[in-house]
């Protein structure tokens, strides 16, 4: 019997057990056969069997068994040295899409998938397409901080999802005055990684929602191709828009001037601004002076 017909037979047997509600037996059988494939280094068969098995468990609403098989699939990816490819990612995306966003293991599943893409792909923080899907699923499940991390490094579509998430969160806060805290997040996150396109995109998308929703007093300022909204009562929003433009200039004097003008109302952003100062303007972070260390170093002939 050929390998593919054996696999089809195993899957049919497995499917019958699932349909009769014999989940434990189905799970054990599938794992035993998959183990055999792994031991004989028939990795492709093992991958097909495990991923189709996981999918069947997801359809049967057996999240625990499904996530166990997803972790096993990732183990096989690792042992087999499966590199990041459209097919390998698509297989994981398909499973993620079917996974219930309230599944208790969802964060671990996301981490496991991303860790594989970090190890076997060209991106230090993982595959952008995988990030987009993970971010979306985690947001759906209410894991907002984790979702944010993934969406920032996602695809073009992730920007809309990130803004939608922040907007919903802002609405839930029930206080219009908190808008700066929400708006600051995509602006800083995108400036940190040098993504001006998305910083501007987030600015336009988020602020147009805010203007429509709040009817805040505002006025458009346009100069040399740069556009921003001046808000009479929201200095933080003004500052953050100017910050994007300033980072574009890479001019440290302008950066210091901007910070000086808004001093007092941007103290909460000191860490973020310190990082941007270093990254975009070459301003070195001042380390606190340790007098005792300096004296000892001087006595011992060090610097």
């Amino acid at each position, binding site marked *: 019997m050929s390998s593919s017909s054996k696999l089809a037979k195993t899957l049919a047997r497995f499917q019958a057990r699932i349909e009769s509600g014999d989940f434990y037996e189905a799970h054990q059988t599938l794992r035993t056969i998959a183990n055999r494939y792994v031991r004989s280094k028939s990795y492709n068969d093992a991958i097909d069997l495990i991923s189709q098995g996981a999918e069947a468990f997801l359809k049967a609403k057996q999240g625990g068994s499904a996530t166990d098989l997803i972790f096993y699939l990732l183990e096989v990816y690792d042992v087999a040295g499966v590199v990041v490819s459209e097919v390998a990612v698509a297989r994981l995306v398909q499973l993620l899409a079917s996974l219930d966003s309230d599944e208790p293991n969802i964060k671990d599943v996301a981490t496991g998938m991303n860790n594989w893409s970090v190890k076997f792909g060209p991106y230090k923080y993982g595959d952008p397409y995988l990030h987009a899907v993970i971010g979306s699923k985690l947001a759906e499940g209410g894991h907002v901080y984790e979702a944010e991390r993934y969406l920032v490094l996602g695809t073009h579509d992730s920007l809309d999802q990130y803004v939608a998430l922040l907007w919903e969160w802002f609405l839930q806060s029930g206080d219009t005055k908190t808008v700066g805290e929400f708006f600051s997040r995509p602006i800083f996150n995108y400036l940190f990684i040098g993504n001006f396109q998305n910083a501007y995109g987030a600015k336009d998308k988020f602020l147009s929602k805010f203007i429509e929703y709040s009817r805040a007093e*505002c006025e458009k300022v346009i100069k040399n191709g740069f556009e921003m909204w001046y808000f009479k009562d929201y200095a933080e929003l003004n500052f953050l828009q100017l910050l994007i433009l300033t980072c574009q200039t890479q001019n440290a004097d302008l950066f210091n001037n901007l910070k000086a003008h808004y001093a007092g109302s941007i103290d909460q952003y000191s860490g973020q601004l310190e990082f941007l100062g270093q990254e975009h303007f070459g301003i070195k972070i001042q380390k606190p002076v340790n007098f005792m260390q300096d004296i000892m170093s001087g006595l011992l002939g060090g610097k």
Partner: protein
Amino acid sequence: STRTMSSPEKEFITKFVALASVQASGVSADAKVPQQNVTNLGVALPPLRYRYDHRRAKKNATDS
């Protein structure tokens, strides 16, 4: 509402934008570091003081 406003902050913004926008050609507005070259994510942003209720979000999405 949008209207013409004047305030010390508005004056600062007008002058600042005039100055900065002519220097902004160093990096274009649609520039982005390719993700393969991203090696630092910056500093972790502090958590917000507001809880996010994903069930409420789902309900709002369904209602709208």
